[in-house]
């Protein structure tokens, strides 16, 4: 267990790089913040695509057009049948007259054209929406396959194509983000690792003395680990701050732009701190052995 003097020493040494190697440390933080900014932008775009996809999925619906020779009772029986299908949330009936009225309203000034028709061409229909769990291509397709077999149904309209396209692009973007994110992750570790190596090299005498007087490896390593974590923290806060400013500016032009929540921002900074820790650890594995190289 460390005593107060040791805690004080470790705290002081953890910030030693900021006093003794201001330029190197500053450049490291900037480079790391740039890399993390790329990572954060990719994550934010993925997050926004995900939100867009979720909104699109929320608008997924099915319209069942029905035969026009069915009795009202027969048509009414379909409603409970539809509601028993797993994944169906709400079912709304639209009779042919209501559909025509809606069509007339949509035509506006061209509505008198409808007077030329000798009968109402629009069939009655059911509008089906899905539960949250069923808003995916497989579930919707399964529901569609089931209802299309019903003899009362003449046609099923499903607005899924563009949702599928959005989903495909989102997936591709997520994969690209993952690859770029991994590269950025490795680059960030490399940058921090090299800075800590410089710190270790410039602290070789103090490390040697510590080893010779019997300091444990954990005691020797702690300031370097803390330094990496502090650098990671500052780079993370800088990247997140820049992104927040950019997002605020862009949100005036892009409606519905989603930014990280407070918890997500905190998580990102914690991730950066861990990145700093990993970078320091990678540097020390090679440079801090038990030997003091007397």
């Amino acid at each position: 267990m460390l005593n107060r003097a040791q805690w004080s020493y470790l705290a002081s040494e953890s910030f030693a790089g900021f006093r003794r190697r201001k330029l190197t440390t500053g450049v490291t933080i900037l480079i790391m913040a740039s890399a993390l900014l790329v990572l954060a932008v990719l994550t934010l775009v993925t997050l926004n695509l995900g939100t867009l996809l979720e909104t699109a999925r929320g608008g997924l619906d099915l319209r069942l057009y029905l035969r026009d020779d069915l009795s009202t009772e027969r048509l009414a029986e379909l409603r409970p049948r539809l509601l028993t299908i797993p994944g169906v949330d709400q079912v709304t009936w639209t009779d042919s007259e209501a559909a025509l009225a809606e069509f007339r309203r949509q035509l506006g000034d061209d509505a008198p054209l409808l007077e030329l028709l000798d009968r109402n061409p629009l069939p009655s229909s059911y509008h089906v929406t899905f539960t949250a769990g069923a808003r995916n291509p497989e579930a919707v397709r399964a529901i569609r396959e089931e209802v299309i077999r019903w003899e009362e149904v003449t046609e099923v309209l499903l607005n899924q194509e563009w949702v599928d396209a959005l989903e495909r692009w989102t997936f591709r973007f997520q994969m690209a983000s993952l690859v770029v994110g991994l590269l950025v992750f490795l680059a960030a570790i490399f940058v921090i690792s090299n800075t800590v190596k410089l710190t270790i090299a410039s602290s070789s005498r103090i490390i040697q003395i510590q080893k010779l007087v019997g300091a444990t490896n954990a005691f020797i390593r702690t300031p370097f680990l803390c330094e990496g974590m502090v650098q990671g923290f500052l780079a993370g806060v800088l990247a997140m701050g820049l992104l927040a400013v950019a997002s605020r500016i862009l949100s005036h032009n892009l409606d519905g732009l989603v930014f990280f929540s407070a918890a997500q921002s905190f998580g990102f900074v914690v991730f950066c701190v861990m990145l700093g820790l990993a970078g320091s650890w990678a540097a020390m594995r090679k440079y801090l052995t038990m030997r003091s190289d007397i």
Partner: protein
Amino acid sequence: MTSRRPSPAAPETSGPLDPRAIISFHHVDLQYDDQKALSNVTFTVANGEFVCLTGPSGAGKSSILRLIAMDAFPTKGQVIVRGMPATRMNRGRVPQLRREIGYVFQDFRLLEDRSVEDNVAFAQLVVGQPHKLIVKNVMRVLTQVGLYDKRHRLPRQLSGGEQQRVAIARAMVNSPKILLADEPTGNLDPVTAQEIIDLLFRVNDAGTCVMFSTHDHEIVKTFGQRVLVVDGGTLISDERRRVPVDRSASLVDNMYRAPEGARSPGARTVRKEPVHA
């Protein structure tokens, strides 16, 4: 200059496994990457003994000291320090062992940006001594080496001899059982070198086993204690001297007064040159 009475608490040991031995080398080989540093080295050092390790540069003196400090491990044979065998020792226990070993270097290796006091205190800080004890111990050792009045100075504000005394104070502050001094007089003039060796004798008087290496011909000639000579990585001589020399005399005086058997021709000139050069 350096000849002194035999250490009172330094009985001769019978062999590597002698329980009185604080340091034992048993047929030790040490190989660096592509170079053999030591070959079949066997000796023991008793608790409280004062030993001079000599030989030309590159003979293996520093390697022996590194093995004792567990900064290197034998490729063959066994090194036992304070009862801990190097080859079977858990590396996690090395820091514990090093707390019982003080180390002094030719180039002092002080922290240049810290005061004398902080340099000495540093050795106590890293091993977790409480602040009050650090203050007390630092005052004690700095007084012993005669530098308490200069405790606030930086190393560059001190002479070479004073810097070496700071290094010895740092090595002694944790009250080690063994003090290893690697060429501690190498950068010092003869008079200052004598002061340092006198200081090492005082450390030894207090019961600490002292082992110091030197390639200085003049120091070895007049050294009145045990002398181990290494050359080419092999221990070629282990001589136990009993040469009484006037402790109050100066370095140069003692060298001139050293008895015939302990002085080689040409010893009147105070020069630093390897024993086997």
